[in-house]
């Protein structure tokens, strides 16, 4: 789940000029379907990787239904694949930390799509990169709401179906290493990272975290290198280092 909403787009939700309302609505629907379908398809890779990591089909399906946030799901099974049950604590911590961005998304979406407690729970459940990004890309609040719910619903249904398909395929494959599935995991994380590297600061953090993970790997338990590397983000983020886009 990769597309990252641009924070500045929130301002675009207030219509400041006459816009073609029917056209805008059609655009919101088109974007929701395009983003939703593209995202849902790669549930296949999650399903297959999860089974390759040692989870069974039910556990894999449960993650897509309940956790339903791709980065955390890939992280959980990735850390378990690398470290086994002994890395359980690290796997949980990594998945949870990757879920922190959803708090930010929820805060941005609440005024648009929140309401009764039941509505909030439903909205929170489908608050992910894609539903937030499509909503924030709309000019009119009504279309933002439409984009959020439609994208979220398409990804939810599609992601769960493709997860099941991927898990069954992975299950039938047997030796997943011979099929190169262990290499697919790195490519999956790279795909999640790629759209986030537009700013220099993000690139610097990515390189720093990668180096730290590699350096500490031989000395600590599997699972811990990822958590230690997260300190790079804390350090750079706290002091706002490597910011080439100085505020005016």
């Amino acid at each position, binding site marked *: 789940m990769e597309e990252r909403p641009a924070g500045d787009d929130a301002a675009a939700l207030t219509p400041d000029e006459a816009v073609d309302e029917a056209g805008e609505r059609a655009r919101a629907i088109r974007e929701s379907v395009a983003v939703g379908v593209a995202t849902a398809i790669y549930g296949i890779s999650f399903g297959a990787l999860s089974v390759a990591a040692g989870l069974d089909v039910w556990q894999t399906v449960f993650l897509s239904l309940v956790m339903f946030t791709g980065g955390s799901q890939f992280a959980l099974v990735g850390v378990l694949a*690398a470290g086994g049950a002994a890395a359980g604590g690290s796997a949980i911590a990594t998945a949870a930390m990757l879920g922190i961005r959803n*708090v930010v998304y929820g805060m941005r979406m609440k005024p648009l799509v929140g309401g009764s407690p039941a509505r909030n729970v439903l909205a929170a459940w489908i608050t992910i990169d894609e539903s937030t990004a499509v909503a924030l890309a709309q000019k009119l609040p009504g279309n933002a709401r439409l984009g959020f719910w439609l994208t979220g619903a398409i990804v939810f249904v599609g992601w769960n179906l493709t997860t099941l398909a991927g898990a069954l395929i992975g299950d039938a494959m047997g030796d997943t290493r011979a099929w190169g599935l262990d290499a697919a995991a*790195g490519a999956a994380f*790279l795909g999640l990272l790629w759209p986030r590297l537009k700013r220099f600061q993000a690139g610097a953090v990515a390189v720093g975290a990668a180096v730290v993970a590699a350096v500490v790997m031989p000395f600590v338990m599997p699972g811990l290198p990822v958590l230690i590397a997260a300190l790079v983000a804390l350090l750079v983020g706290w002091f706002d280092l490597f910011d080439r886009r100085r505020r005016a």
Partner: protein
Amino acid sequence: MTTWHLILIASAATLALKLGGYLVPVGFLERERPARIADLLTVALLAALIVVQTLGAGQALVVDARVPALIVAAALYAIRAPFIVAVAAAAVVAAAIRAFG
């Protein structure tokens, strides 16, 4: 801790975070520093996961078929190939190197 325990705890944590955004008063993470750290945290974790998945073998660092597979995936992302295509290509490259290498 069984695998189910792990899954339940991790799912509860991520779901609670999602709900948190709708429950806590607006403000905290909208401030610049927390929002920036939350953003960069995602980047750091993903970058570290790439290294662990591509070079890790237990606690050892090894260079094997996964490295060329990742390079192919990166090239495909660079030309804006879809996620699923790059991931599948990485698997095919690694499998082919192991089969014929």
